[in-house]
Every structure is written in C-alpha cells, then in structure tokens.
C-alpha cells in the first residue's frame, strides 16, 4: 500500500454552512479535532453558503459526523476511503513500482 496504508478509512466530507451558527460550530470542530482543511484553505475564511471540504482521519470521522448530526448540519461524504483514491490516483505508478 502507498504511504503504508495510513489513509485507510480517512474521509473527505463536504459541509455547506447555512448560517453564522453553523460556521462557528465548524470552526470549533476544526480546532478540536485537528482536521485537514482542503477548501477553503484557511479556517478564518469559512463563510456561510460556501463549501467546506475537510479531510478527517478514520479515528475522528465518526465523532465529527456525530457532532454535525447533533447540530443538524447536513454534510456529504465526498471521498469515503481516501486510501483507495490514493491507490487509484497513481495506478500506473504502483504498476511501475511492480515493474
């Protein structure tokens, strides 16, 4: 496995905050759970109505989603298993490696 399979079970989740309250909840979750912000690229510019994409490791994704559900903030799982996507991205590379 590439990267020693370290991304197995990691997810990328998209949230579109609808109001300031949801923006604040997202910001605090970001700080609490140390997630990797993919978009936008700074937590200070998370605004309502704009997509926020977060890479969450497998140990935190369950907690993160339950927080969102409790706050009734809808979300979408963009990538359900990051390791699979990584393997797919460089498919030829891993075959090259085998070669």
């Amino acid at each position, binding site marked *: 496995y590439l990267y020693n399979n370290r991304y197995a079970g990691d997810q990328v989740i998209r949230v579109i905050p609808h109001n300031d309250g949801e923006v604040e909840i997202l910001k605090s979750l970001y700080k609490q759970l140390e997630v990797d*912000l993919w978009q*936008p690229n700074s937590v200070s510019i998370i605004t309502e109505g704009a997509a926020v994409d977060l890479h969450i490791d497998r140990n935190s994704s369950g907690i993160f989603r339950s927080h969102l559900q409790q706050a009734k903030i809808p979300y979408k799982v963009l990538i359900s298993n*990051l390791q699979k996507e*990584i393997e797919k991205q460089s498919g030829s590379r891993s075959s090259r490696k085998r070669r």
Partner: protein
Amino acid sequence: SESEYDYEVYHSLEEIQSWMHEINRTHPHFVNMFSIGQSFEGRPLYVLQLGKKSRRDKKAVWIDCGVHAREWIGPAFCQWFVKEALHSYHSDPVTRRLMNQLYFYIMPVFNVDGYHFSWTKDRFWRKTRSKNSKFHCRGVDANRNWKVKWCEEGASSHPCDETYCGPYPESEPEVKAVANFLRKQRKRVKAYISIHAYAQMLLYPYSYKYATIPNFDCVESAAHNAVLALYSAYGVRYRYGPASTTLYVSSGSSMDWAYKNGIPYAFAFELRDTGYFGFLLPETLINPTCTETTRAVKTISASLLKKC
C-alpha cells in the same frame, strides 16, 4: 528519454528533474536550464527558460507550479506546457510566435522539499519543510510568505497551521530565490502565473483589498479571453476575477507581490477539480486539464504581444 516520457502520469521530484536535464540537453535552441537557489533541505530550485534563443532582450512570462506540495496537477501542467510548446513550434503559428517573441520561465516544482515529502511521507502535505526552533511543526505556506500585506486575514502566525505565514516575509529560501529572480528580471517579466489546484478559477490582484487595479481593463480582458479559451477545450467553466471579490479578502499572495513589484499581468490559476477528487485528481484527467489550461496560458501570453 524525452520521447518516452509519459506526461499523463504524476512524476516524482527526481523524475521531473531528470526530465528537465533531458529537455535541456535535447532542445539547446529553445531551452536553457538553470537554478535560482536552494531549498531549505538543500535541493536545487530549477527553472527552465523556454523560447527561441535570441540575442535581443525579449519580454518574458514566469510560470511557477507546485507552490503547495499536494497540488500535484501543478507540476504536471508545467511539464505539459513545456512539451506542448516544443512539440507544436513548427506546426502551430501561435506557439511559434510566442516562442519567437517571448521567453517563458517555467518552474515545474516551486516547493521541492514539500513535493518530495508528499511523495514519500504525507500525501496531503501543503507547506514547505523549514524547521522552527521553538515548535515541533514544520513548514510555511509559501503563498503566505511574500512581502505584501503579510500575515493578515487568511494567514496564521502559528507554525502548526496550514496557512502559517512564516517568521518574516521571504523567510523561506524558495520564496526568497523566486523573489530575487523576479526582482532582477523586473524589466523583462511582463506576466506572472502561479498554478494551484482545487477550485477551477483564474484570479488576479488584489487579494488583500477591494480596490481595482490600475490596468483593470487589460487584465480583465486577458482573463476573460483566457477562460473562454479554456472553456473551448472541454466546456469546463472557470470563475475569474479579482481574488478579493471572487474569493475573499486575504493577506497577499505571490500574485499580489508580483503585481506590486511591477509585473503588469499577474494571475493565479486554481485548476481542477472543485471537490470530486480534490487533490487526488486521477492521472486520466491530466491530459484534459493540461490541454485546457495550456489554451488559457497561451491566450494570456498572446495578450502581452498586443497593445493594451
């Protein structure tokens, strides 16, 4: 060899550097490879001067890729652009005119340490790999380390943050090297283009204020024509405009620094996609993404040759 090089896969830093040496060796009349300095970890910062060699001073376009390590489509695009320019010189009159009248300074991997690290340890590494004596976290966001509205909104002064602006502007040797080169070449470099990923946008100054740039009409027209050219390839729509209004007001980036330092056309591309694959754009999308972006960059370059 160059003819066997596969431009439709992602390459490691070592492969890209070998490719640069090979391109330099096989195209002596069009390519000149040099280093503008060293990275924090001591790697050379290679740049290709691309264009029909000439004794007279020519205007130049600077294109850097890979400022953020995990945005692999950037370096792929820089290599693609060089290949297209060299392969279509004899068959495409637009390419021939650009290569005859301009130089392109192409930096396929700006953040060489970060890129290497993203291949070997952490696929989603973003920053450089500089060390901070007081904190265990490494790296600075090379797009927040420029001496223009430094470390304000949208940047962080905490070394562990992804948008860490660094201890002081140009603290990163990679940023310093590019800034020094562009300062030296100020009279000739007429366009600065920085290739990023994950938004499908074409942005120009200012990021850090809502004001309109003095040559707005010319830059706006170049951007508009560029996104039309990009759309003509596969129908992909890019948003474009001043970064402050198209995105958000934030601290200055390399594009703002270039503009403030006298480069009249300064752009940042955010290539595909907008969130389906994110930074993991599959290799099967390298070709269409680079094809459409090449059209846009050629359109911007052609606008330098027109009076505006």
